């Protein structure tokens, strides 16, 4: 991979983490539980996204985050009170920032109108928003600082108007607005920052303009360019750096913030941050420049040179100020750094005030974050495979030792017991590497709730619990879709409108609760709402209308509630944009089942519903029923099995020439001979000698599978058959048994489908519908 691409990838990984941190902090602010450290972390998150974005030239991202950051900074310095309205705007801004990041990562664009609208909303909360951080919609304009050429008194003889270029305008233009105003005269005295980038700064794709803009966002900055180091044109290195800047900032700015601005560049520049004497106050810019420019005869020549250079470099003289506004571009190095020594003298002559203790020093030190490393997932998977193999090997070894006739109390067996313990521990530890808290999924939900709430006009509060619950990474990834759908469903269908809620004596704001917990070796995710509950009369009517049940069917409340999972069922009278995307709860149920999970609903009319989703902790293992068919050992996924029974002779009835049905408590279900369906059964099919597994299939409802014996239940490690072979009908995957042999895991739906396709008369099975 290109090194730059690798860095870019890392940047976006970090962006995700920063955005999560941002969202978390904002949620804390929303709940009013934010301390200054939270606000700082929120600020840092946006700041880091911006910094990285700047390095990669992601202009729209940088512009947006700059506006965002400006408001956060004012909140941080207590200039702006984080009211409910402000935090709501910040949350929307965080969503927008996430959009900007993904647009920058995946290409594609963002909703410009929305971005601008949110940026405008942010600026409406920002004090003097446009002055400290102008949001420039034109993509070509990178500068956040509003450089405006402005005539100020400047006693520089060389600044006499040239024929078509004015050096004083050039120098003045480098002074940021509001240059004419005196520097804020605090009691502490202002800051003087001397900043002279080396060529290496530009070589590392940093940009002085970003640093200067950063400084300007800290407070009213007066920025002066030091351009005396500019050599004559023929001596000039096009890739060199000749410009330096003096930035004056009000004393109220924290030194740490100033240093932060140089975080990415401090190794590649001469940096000097000093505090001016408070009594003396900030001399105005004109006096500074006048003093600095004292060696008049010497300055005159370079200035002429400069103007001629600029005429050459900039095609239209009118565009000159714009060119000066972006001096860091390495191809325009018209710096005159000789000014710097004078400025240094000036700052040195001022008695340097004692450096103020950084604000953070007073705060108790934050606990150091746990150390982490990034590891390629493939490496972890390889390790897990090896450990799985070790476990099998250990089991085989134990079996061989037993076969050799060594007694239980012999040294060999004791050592093997120790080995078993060790391998189990290793296995648990390795699985823990892949375990991740469900937080990463839960964190995406507040945004969803806000958006769905907005779209439906409902007021919703999301309460989450158990975010720290850990589950295998593969499961975490698969959780997102079902949870998203359940939450959408809860808000759209479950919760009432504020008016309806008040009429029912509830608070106008509905509560959606999202929880995660470990329960008996599985992870249980629950989504509950305090809405109206399932409208059973409507559900029932709909089910009859859709032909899912007969009009006279006797059903318990629970059975009616579960009808919403039936394929093709959707209660929404009008297909709304939120839930009705042609995806019903049946799809959710199917995808959950595909993961070896179960989904259930408990509903109380008027009080709300609760969806409960139970999933295995990892997708690498499966709870299976180990069965024998012919001379083969097979595994049936336990989640699909309803019950197992031994059919009596009279219970199995032929249906047509080749099909059988099994009578279970007055119901007939199709009977499939597993061996025959897989092509390795016995010659004669005798149902009374085997065991029937009653399973739930998606395609044909309940089906009975005939097997020879049940060996027992076991957790098995899932191995793909497709990696080295090909997908096979009726087989979901493979696993490796304790004796090292491969056993196939049955795919119930595939088996049923294959059986239905098989001759002679597939339609005979339709009776189960």
């Amino acid at each position: 991979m290109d090194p730059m691409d690798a860095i870019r990838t890392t940047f976006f990984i970090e962006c995700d983490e920063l955005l999560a941190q941002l969202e978390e902090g904002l949620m804390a602010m929303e709940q009013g539980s934010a301390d200054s450290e939270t606000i700082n972390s929120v600020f840092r998150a946006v700041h880091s996204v911006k910094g990285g974005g700047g390095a990669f030239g992601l202009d729209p991202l940088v512009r947006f985050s700059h506006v965002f950051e400006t408001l956060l900074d004012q909140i941080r310095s207590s200039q702006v009170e984080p009211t409910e309205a402000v935090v709501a705007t910040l949350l929307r801004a965080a969503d927008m920032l996430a959009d900007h990041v993904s647009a920058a990562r995946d290409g594609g664009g963002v909703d410009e109108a929305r971005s601008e609208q949110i940026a405008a909303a942010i600026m409406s909360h920002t004090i003097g928003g446009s002055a400290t951080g102008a949001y420039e919609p034109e993509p070509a304009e990178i500068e956040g600082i509003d450089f405006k050429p402005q005539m100020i008194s400047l006693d520089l003889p060389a600044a006499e108007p040239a024929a078509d270029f004015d050096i004083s305008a050039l120098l003045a233009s480098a002074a940021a607005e509001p240059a004419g105003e005196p520097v804020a005269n605090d009691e502490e005295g202002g800051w003087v920052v001397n900043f002279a980038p080396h060529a290496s700064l530009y070589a590392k794709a940093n940009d002085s303009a970003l640093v200067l803009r950063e400084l300007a966002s800290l407070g009213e900055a007066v920025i002066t360019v030091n351009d005396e180091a500019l050599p004559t044109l023929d001596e000039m290195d096009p890739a060199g750096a000749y410009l330096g800047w003096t930035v004056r900032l009000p004393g109220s700015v924290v030194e740490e913030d100033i240093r932060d601005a140089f975080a990415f560049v401090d190794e590649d520049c001469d940096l000097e941050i000093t505090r001016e004497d408070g009594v003396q106050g900030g001399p105005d810019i004109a006096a500074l420049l006048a003093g600095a420019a004292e060696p008049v005869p010497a300055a005159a020549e370079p200035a002429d040179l400069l103007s001629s250079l600029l005429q050459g470099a900039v095609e239209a003289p009118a565009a000159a100020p714009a060119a000066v506004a972006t001096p860091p571009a390495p191809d325009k190095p018209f710096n005159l750094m000789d000014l710097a020594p004078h400025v240094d003298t000036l700052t040195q002559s001022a008695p340097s005030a004692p450096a103020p203790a950084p604000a953070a020093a007073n705060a108790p030190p934050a606990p150091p974050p746990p150390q982490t490393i990034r590891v390629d997932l493939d490496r972890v998977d390889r390790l897990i495979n090896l450990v799985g193999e070790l476990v099998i090997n250990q089991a085989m070894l134990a079996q061989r030792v037993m076969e050799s006739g060594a007694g239980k109390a012999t040294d060999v067996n004791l050592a093997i017991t120790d080995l078993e313990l060790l391998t189990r521990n290793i296995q648990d530890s390795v699985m823990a590497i892949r375990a991740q808290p469900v937080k990463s999924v839960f964190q995406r939900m507040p945004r969803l709730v806000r958006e769905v709430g907005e779209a439906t006009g409902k007021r919703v509060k999301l309460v989450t619990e158990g975010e720290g619950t850990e589950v295998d990474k593969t499961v975490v990834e698969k959780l997102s879709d079902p949870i998203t759908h359940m939450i959408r469903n809860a808000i759209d269908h479950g919760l009432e409108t504020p008016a309806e809620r008040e009429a029912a004596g509830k608070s106008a704001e509905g509560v959606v609760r999202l929880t995660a917990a470990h329960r008996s070796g599985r992870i249980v995710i629950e989504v509950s709402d305090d809405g109206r509950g399932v409208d059973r009369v409507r559900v029932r009517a709909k089910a009859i209308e859709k032909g899912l049940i007969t009009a006279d069917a006797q059903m318990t409340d629970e059975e009616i509630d579960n009808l919403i999972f039936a394929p093709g069922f959707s209660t929404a009278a009008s297909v709304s944009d939120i839930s009705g995307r042609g995806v019903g709860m049946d799809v959710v149920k199917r995808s959950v089942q595909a993961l070896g999970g179960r989904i259930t609903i408990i509903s109380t009319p008027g009080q709300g519903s609760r969806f409960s989703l139970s999933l295995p902790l990892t997708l690498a293992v499966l709870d299976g029923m180990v069965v024998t068919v012919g001379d083969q050992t097979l595994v049936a996924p336990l989640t699909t099995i309803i019950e197992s029974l031994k059919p009596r002779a009279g219970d199995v009835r032929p249906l047509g020439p080749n099909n059988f049905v099994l009578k279970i408590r007055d119901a007939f279900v199709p009977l499939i001979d597993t061996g025959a369906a897989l092509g390795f059964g016995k010659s004669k099919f005798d149902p009374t000698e085997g065991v029937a597994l009653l399973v739930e299939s998606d395609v044909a409802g309940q089906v009975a599978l005939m097997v020879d014996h049940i060996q027992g239940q076991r957790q098995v490690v899932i191995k793909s058959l497709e990696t080295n072979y090909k997908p096979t009908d009726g087989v979901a995957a493979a696993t490796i048994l304790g004796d090292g042999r491969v056993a196939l895991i049955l795919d119930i739906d595939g088996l049923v489908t294959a059986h239905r396709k098989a001759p002679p008369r597939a339609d005979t099975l339709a009776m189960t519908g």
Partner: protein
Amino acid sequence: MTELSLDGRDGSELISFRIGEQEFCVDIMAVREIRGWTPATPVPHSPRFVRGVINLRGAVLPVIDLADRLGLGAAVETARHVIIVVQIGSRIVGLLVDAVCDILSTADHTVQKTPDLAGDHMQNFVKGLIALDGRMISLIDLGLVLDTHQAEAA
């Protein structure tokens, strides 16, 4: 007689093995390991020459009965049969053969073009012949073994 280059590399090494009375060889770079016969788990709905799948240190890989694949009749496996584990593209496949014989270098032996025998099934899989001490060794095209097998199985 035409010289046949093996992936443009001179002095490639080949591993030769025996099926019945005939000798074959494959590029040694494709061979991952050689292991003894282990019973394979049959896979439903697969062609007859796919003996089933075996466990190779946690990976599940198919075993192809090369004799059957080449049209020489299905092998009756014994404990002396071996499985040559080869990598074909991104897949790892086991080849069931009678015995492994030798390692030879193409630098020492000329690979001759396979004579055109119309209609012979085996001709599809043999991309060249090597003469060695009066024996004839057929060079197997591994890619074709799998490709055709997939085309047929699909």
